[in-house]
């Protein structure tokens, strides 16, 4: 899935997450296929972006933000040689905490 601006929607894209109104009500459900009428309705509602299902072979946000476990292991490896440096230690701690919090 990926998050795109309403301006980037083309007909036939499918919602990967529901579109939720300001009151928390679901305006369009997950799996809705976006046709012209719905796209203009989204614009009228002032929805800034939607999350859609990705097409095959696309580079998507899952690829950009790999799984947290993988990230935590990678961080240890990347910092192995430098984490004793006082400034690098600050970056190391902040990064570790960032991936801890995100879970």
């Amino acid at each position, binding site marked *: 899935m*990926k*998050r*795109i*601006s309403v*301006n*980037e929607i083309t007909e036939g894209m499918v919602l990967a997450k529901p579109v939720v109104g300001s009151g928390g009500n679901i305006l369009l459900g997950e799996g809705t296929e976006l046709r012209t009428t719905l796209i203009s309705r989204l614009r009228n509602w002032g929805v*800034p*972006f939607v999350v859609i299902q990705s097409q095959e072979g*696309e*580079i*998507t*946000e899952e*690829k*950009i*933000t*790999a799984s947290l476990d993988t*990230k935590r292991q*990678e*961080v240890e*490896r*990347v*910092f*192995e*040689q*430098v984490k004793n*440096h006082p*400034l*690098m230690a*600050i*970056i*190391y*701690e*902040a*990064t570790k*905490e*960032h991936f801890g919090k*995100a879970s």
Partner: protein
Amino acid sequence: MITASTIGSQEKLKLAVDRITGLPTLPQVITEITRLMQNPRTSAEEVGKALIMDQALASKVLKLVNSAFYGFPGRINTITHAIVILGFNTVKNIILTASIFETLGGKGGGQKEFDIEKFWLHSIGTGVLAREISKKLNFKFFEECFLGGLLHDLGKIILYKFMPEEMDKVLQVQKEENCLFFLAEKKALDVTHDQIGGWLTSKWNLPEDLRNAVLYHHMPMLSGKYAMMVSIVHIADILCRALCIGSGGDSTIPVVDEKAWEKLKFSRQLIDKIYSDIDLELEKAAVFFQIM
């Protein structure tokens, strides 16, 4: 001061780049647009007319302008409209960004051992981080910082696409010693990607701030009056490696330049602020993969 060793390295660089054949040029329309934009009397229509001569580029520019990454409300249908709403400078940066992807993007050609997808992730990630850092610091040239981050490793893509034998040697050293790509280049070629990239920015007549970002991203304090922007790119590169976004050909991290850290008044609090918004910004940056 010019020393014997700098002459030596310039000569080596010249020897290396002279062997490159088939190096692409930026789309011709870029020269025309740069010329037009230097003239304060140029109108938005004139720039729009020049850009639509290159239809492929124009459609990429419009796609970027309307993406969540740039986040402008309402739909922008023409280049002229984009300039009126966003201003010359923003549009110029977007055109330059689109033309870089048009010229160097894509997976074609190149040395198989080098992961080009991860390379672009690292470049885009560094651009996004540089933009975030400058926004948090209220540094107004955040779009220039994005471009600086995006292009900082320009020399690596030249090695990848146009110097396969040299790239082979570098990758071999990097693998054997698990060192920084930069150090592997030094050992294998005695010429490094910042020098190669810097050379190309001159050849392409890219703006001086960008040339400095490419040439000095490992030594930001050498960039004189561009030290603020180059320090931002330098730290963005390090944070991008810390967050393990893509890879520039090695899996280690250079030590941050202490003077650059001081110049930006960097701190743990600032890193936390940058990190808190970064995932959302990276999601929006997926648009760059669509224009490759």
